[in-house]
């Protein structure tokens, strides 16, 4: 064995992009660096959740397949008004263990006076496209309605999907979601928490097709050629 061969006593026990299970030994040796969803135990690197193995040079991580939404600053989410207090609105985030709160001053770009009837702005049961401004150490979430694209969602349908599929549904540079919007002529808003709002002014049928294609992307997210598949599906099913 040469000096290099002796150093390379590390070995990979699983293939890149394969699915791994908690406790599965992914690699042996000290050459690899365990990051998200993996941990080191002596000489082994072990998966700490169900996920897709991602090996980038020496960096090993797992990409989750499922799991609840953990809120991050600047995320756009779709939440439902749960309660109204003096100081603002309490928001149910769905798919998430934590609630959000919109303070009076963050409810609108125009000034809301204390004592105003907050129901006029957002009422209990209404859905809002809102943005995460801060996540505290205890996972308390501050939300705002001030900003472009942030609004109350009126007519339309709300569906729930796996939050980990959101990037796939949006697609590279928004390509997948633009395809679906274009072909079905629907307005679609995707919350990072896996709540999706779909609305068609003129065709209720195409609205349902848009929903079906979103669910298809979520289900078949691991397969290749997905954009072509979805395009074919849309062409076959939409009503002009």
């Amino acid at each position, binding site marked *: 064995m040469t000096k290099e061969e002796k150093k390379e006593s590390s070995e990979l026990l699983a293939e890149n992009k394969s*699915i791994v299970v908690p406790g599965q030994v992914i690699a042996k040796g000290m050459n690899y660096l365990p990051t998200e969803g993996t941990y080191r135990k002596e000489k082994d690197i072990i998966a700490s959740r169900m996920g897709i193995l991602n090996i980038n040079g020496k960096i090993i991580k797992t990409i989750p397949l499922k799991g609840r939404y953990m809120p991050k600053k600047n995320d756009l989410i779709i939440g439902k008004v749960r309660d109204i207090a003096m100081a603002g609105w309490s928001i149910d985030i769905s798919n998430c*263990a934590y609630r959000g709160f919109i303070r009076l001053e963050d409810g609108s770009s125009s000034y809301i006076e204390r004592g105003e009837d907050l129901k006029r702005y957002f009422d209990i049961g209404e859905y809002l496209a809102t943005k995460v401004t801060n996540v505290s150490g*205890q996972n308390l979430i501050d939300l705002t309605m001030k900003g472009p694209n942030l609004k109350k969602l009126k007519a339309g349908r709300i569906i729930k999907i796996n939050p980990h599929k959101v990037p796939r549904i949006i697609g590279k540079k928004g390509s997948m979601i633009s395809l679906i919007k274009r072909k079905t002529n629907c307005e679609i808003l995707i919350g990072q928490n896996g709540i999706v709002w779909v609305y068609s002014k003129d065709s209720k049928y195409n609205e349902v097709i848009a929903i079906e294609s979103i669910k298809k992307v979520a289900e078949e997210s691991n397969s290749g050629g997905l954009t072509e598949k979805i395009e074919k599906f849309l062409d076959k099913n939409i009503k002009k």
Partner: protein
Amino acid sequence: MVYKKRYDGRDFNETRPIEAKAGVIEKADGSAYFRIGGTVAYAAVYGPRQLHPSHLQDPRTGILRCKYNMLPFSGRGERIRPAPNRRSKEISMITEKALIPLLNLEDYPNAVVDVFIELPETNAGSRCAGICAASIALADAGLIMKDMVAAVALGKVDDKIVVDLDYNEEAYEDGDVADIPIAMIPSTGEITLLQMDGKITKNEFREVLKTSKKTIQKIVDIQREALLERYKVKK
């Protein structure tokens, strides 16, 4: 009288046939079906989610809450009246203790991970089947887990060390019987559940422990397959 052959003809170190499936309950965050012989357990995981009532919330960590329940038609004899009883409450608690060491609950302060275990059919080994199903369901939910955990009832019937006692063996009357449910993390051999009912010597017990690791590993292999099966590309 000596226990020469098992009632169902199995080898002494053989479990009953096992069937495991992941993701069987669509509304749950994670779920599983686990059958061992005539004992079937469903497990559903919801969480991390809001914990009610709020006075139970712990700002330092999430909590795990397990509920084990046998359905009214799942027992060998009379109907079981629905309602939590002392036995199911104890089993719920030891199930929690069997699963907690696997999880990173500090990642979810103030929240709860709920695990519901329901058994529609039982023939001994129900708490172990529940733990096996729960372990698959927790992994299916995408939670951070350092490993899988599996459980099985080992023990002795008369003069033989046996694996996976069924109801008839538990009820054996012609000699000593010991029923030992064990939950173990196979990679480290750490034990997360250990109970015993019956009569056994220290040496016999050591024999039982020696047998446990191999059996648990076999079950974990089946649990793993069940999880991977979910994502196999369907043609």
